[in-house]
């Protein structure tokens, strides 16, 4: 006879609470000890794992963030980690570091050129002078939902900003990243969009990650225009729902959200299946690379899992670019379809991390049976890959890379 799982959550989002109640779980009472499953905000996680609190998770407790998730989800750290990952691979002479004639990585060039300000200011200026017509996007490091983002195309704008912010008495610790703006996004119906994909990581060492089939595209409400005069119009450039919601043309029936299935179908019709399959393969690889880049530094606590929101932009050559990773993708629903999708997302996450809705057991090898993965597809499981390789040792080992299953996605 197993006792009921006790849950806690930092927010009372209905998609969470309904899922817990559906499983017959009961609400925990104190944040101190009396819980088995805690859906926290990143702040609470930080408190819990803080050395000062002296609190240690017991065996039957599960939490939805890794202690240092910011290695992946903070814009500057992500860039740093990926740069280091590339160097490491180069040291190993990995075939992945292959470069084309323009000295660009063929497989690892998946985030726009990015510098951290003010630290990298001089390198940035050098780069900018090489290519003075380019547009750059400034993002505050630790803010989400499109807050504080602006575009620049002249060095003087940057200088003015730095002067202004000093005058305004901003905290100099408020670092920004400046990235090359992707000014040739792929357009559908004349509008810019980006992809929001959900990725569940249950363990970093060995790496076990799943990708959610029901991701979506977020569309701008206004036709895309790369003209300089529109540089200040955030409705043209930013796809964040929290921004678009305030546009005049925001439609609350569909919320500007298009399913990945629709995107896939559109691309297969207009560009052919091969190109489409390659694009979605590349997206899967981007995710795998980004996770492997932080694998070494992430504290792989067995009590943790994390569901990331990946933001990906596709340019007009159908090359995907990783923009950023969110540790707490929004669970607020804008439309009816959105609510169903997010409810299913949480349901499927719980199916994988808490099989049968029972009390978590950290000794479990975290290999869910195939039929309990819901709408998640296995992206990478290094443990299974190692087993496979072991079994196939007699055969020629073709996989230089861990086995992933990027095919059969979004079917």
């Amino acid at each position, binding site marked *: 006879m197993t006792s009921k799982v006790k849950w806690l959550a930092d927010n009372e989002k209905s998609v969470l609470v309904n899922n817990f109640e559906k499983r017959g779980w009961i609400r925990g009472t104190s944040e101190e000890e009396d819980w088995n499953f805690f859906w926290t905000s990143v702040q609470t996680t930080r408190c819990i794992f803080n050395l000062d609190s002296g609190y240690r998770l017991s065996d039957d407790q599960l939490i939805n963030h890794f202690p240092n998730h910011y290695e992946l989800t903070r814009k500057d750290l992500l860039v740093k980690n990926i740069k280091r990952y590339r160097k490491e691979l180069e040291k190993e002479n990995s075939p992945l570091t292959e470069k084309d004639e323009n000295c660009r990585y063929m497989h690892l060039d998946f985030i726009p050129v990015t510098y951290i300000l003010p630290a990298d200011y001089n390198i940035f200026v050098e780069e900018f002078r090489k290519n003075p017509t380019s547009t750059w996007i400034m993002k505050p490091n630790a803010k989400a939902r499109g807050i504080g983002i602006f575009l620049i195309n002249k060095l003087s704008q940057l200088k003015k900003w730095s002067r202004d912010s000093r005058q305004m008495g901003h905290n100099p610790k408020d670092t920004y990243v400046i990235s090359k703006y992707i000014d040739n996004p792929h357009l559908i119906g004349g509008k810019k969009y980006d992809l929001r994909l959900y990725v569940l990581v249950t363990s970093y060492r060995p790496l076990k990650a799943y990708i959610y089939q029901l991701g979506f595209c977020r569309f701008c409400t206004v036709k895309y225009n790369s003209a300089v005069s529109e540089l200040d119009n955030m409705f043209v450039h930013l796809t964040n729902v929290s921004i678009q919601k305030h546009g005049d043309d925001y439609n609350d*029936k569909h919320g500007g959200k298009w399913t990945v299935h629709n995107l896939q179908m559109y691309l297969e019709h207009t560009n052919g299946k091969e190109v489409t399959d390659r694009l979605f393969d590349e997206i899967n690889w981007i995710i795998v690379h980004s996770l492997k880049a932080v694998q070494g530094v992430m504290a792989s606590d067995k009590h943790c899992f994390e569901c990331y929101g990946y933001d990906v932009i596709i340019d007009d050559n159908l090359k995907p670019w990783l923009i950023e990773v969110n540790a707490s993708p929004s669970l607020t629903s804008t439309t009816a379809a959105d609510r169903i999708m997010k409810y299913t997302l949480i349901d499927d996450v719980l199916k994988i991390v808490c099989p049968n809705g029972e009390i978590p057991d950290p000794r479990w090898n975290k290999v869910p049976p195939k039929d309990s993965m819901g709408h998640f597809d296995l992206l990478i499981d290094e443990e299974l890959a190692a087993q496979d390789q072991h079994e196939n040792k007699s055969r020629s080992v073709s996989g230089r890379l861990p086995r992933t299953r990027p095919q059969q996605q979004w079917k």
Partner: protein
Amino acid sequence: MVAGSQSNEGLVKDIINVIQASDLGWTLKRAVQDELSKSFVNVKDIKRLVPVFMKESGWDIKVRNVVFMYLMTHTPPSHPITPPETLKEPMSFIRNAQARWEKRILKSINTMCTEKNIPLARMRTIREQADFTQKWKDMAFSDENMGDIRPVYAPKDFMEVLTSLSSPNYTAKIYDYSDVNERSGTSVWGLIQVRLHLKTTQQLRVLFSNLSTHHFQTGADDIEGPNPEWQRLGVKTVQLGYTPTAQRYLQQGCYPTQRGDIWLLALGVDNSPLSYQYYNQLKASVFKYELLVDRLFLQDVRLTAGNHEAYFVFEDLVVQILLCFSRDTQFLDHFKRTSASPPHAYTRNNMGETDHTVVYPPNGIIPFHGFSLFLAPMCFIWSDPVILYNVFKALYTRFFFRLHSLSSHPQGILSLCQQFETMLQTHQPQLFYHLREMGSHPLKHAFTWIMHAFAGYLETAQLLLLWDRIIGYNTLEILPVLAVAVFAFRRNNLMEEGMQSAEYYFDQVRAILTYNGNEQDIQINYGMLLLSILCWCFTVLRVFNTIPDFCWFTFSCLYILFGVQIGICVFVQCIGISGVWCAMVGFAYRMWVHSPADPVLSNKLIVFATFGSYIWANFHYFKTESNFTTICHLVATWLGYEANNIWIKSHQQRDERQKGKTK
């Protein structure tokens, strides 16, 4: 024979005219001229060389495709003295109804004009033209203030017209028991009162024989992954370039990657530079003039495609194409083949006098609510507006125009609706009757599906697979077939509606009596029931004087016992009939104890066997089931025993009274 060859000659002449008037004729002529002007060509050989050149350069395939398309879309020439209105629609009452319907639409447009004070058409000022051009570039039609323009008509209004239509020289004499008082015996079961000649199910089976399950079907047989052989065949079809082959290919559906090419081939659409020019002309006329129907289109897109979760992305593209569509006078051609006629408006000259009549809107088509859904799904296939426009034109003039005009054509909406109702009545009579009784007539649901060709109702991927088949079979008759199939597929859910409580209790009683199909329980319990009845016979029979009295008593006892058992089971959610035989054994046991003297040995054996099995069965359930079950068994037995006590006492009293009376 003579007339036949004459008409053939006419046909050939028509086709030659069509080719000469098309882009194809022009480019073909130039290609042939270029070829013949080469130095090695001898004048004598021209006659021989031209066909060879045509074949070698692939021109003959294009000409063949045009001829095929012409023959497929044009009905064979009719008798020369047929009046033109009969050609449009042979049945006068339908023709008149269509005319009345058009008048109604026109009237409501005129009312809209006067109420909102908007002119039917006007030229934009230079400044407005510049503004509008900018808006077109930005694709920002959603800014346009539409006011409270409402669609001229919705599918529901059109359905009312269809259902109110009845033939003056035909009355359906089906006696309708449920309507005895209202419309004594003159209504048909369906909503459509007109009876048109339809294909039988057998004919449909032959027509759609390639849809049968032993053929590969895209979208159904490839859940595991695309069929590579079918893909290869698709590539080959595109390479071959024959329209009939492409159509045949589409009968089994095609994959997204090839859909664009194959549809163009199967619909005979070639996107020549001339069609781009033509589209630009239409665009120019959109910039120049403002029409009232523009607002209707804009409003329709905003209400339907723009709100749709899959099509909203293409909102502005759809608006652009539909605005060009409204200016295209080439659509007037298709009115020769339909019962509908384009509405007319009067233009006024500068003096304010009525000058002459023009078709309004220029293409003669007034949109209804959901019109943009004919176009929106195709935006998934191409992103070039000109290709989209050309394909939409082909699809509309071949199929979709039939879905919003009254006609007796076998593919007209009237026939499709009747086909739907007849098929549903034939193949799902209970379902049809049930829904009709519930007051939600099947056609009321299916009508919008059919009128929109399922656009907006099916997921886009499935919808395009359906439209594959429409193009492949060159008929809309697949729409009612699919609608019937949807009803048949959802039959159980639909039947449950309103029947739920009765169905629920029926299921429960069945579960109680059959132990949910558990065979061991059935054998034990019905075996015990049989034994206890036998035992009952040998013990209770002696008390009665006559056999009928005994039977009557036994049956009423069984009746009561079963009633009590089912009642208790429904109440406490248990299953089984063990209470019945327990009570009977209890009754028989008391009887046996009361008067054990039975002379026949075999009877004794059966009675003892019954008691033995009773003990064994109770022991068995004591081991396998919860204690509650055994307690219930014992209680039932005790009740039977006590019932016998009471019964015997009352029996004795009655006997004594009778004895007293006789004394």
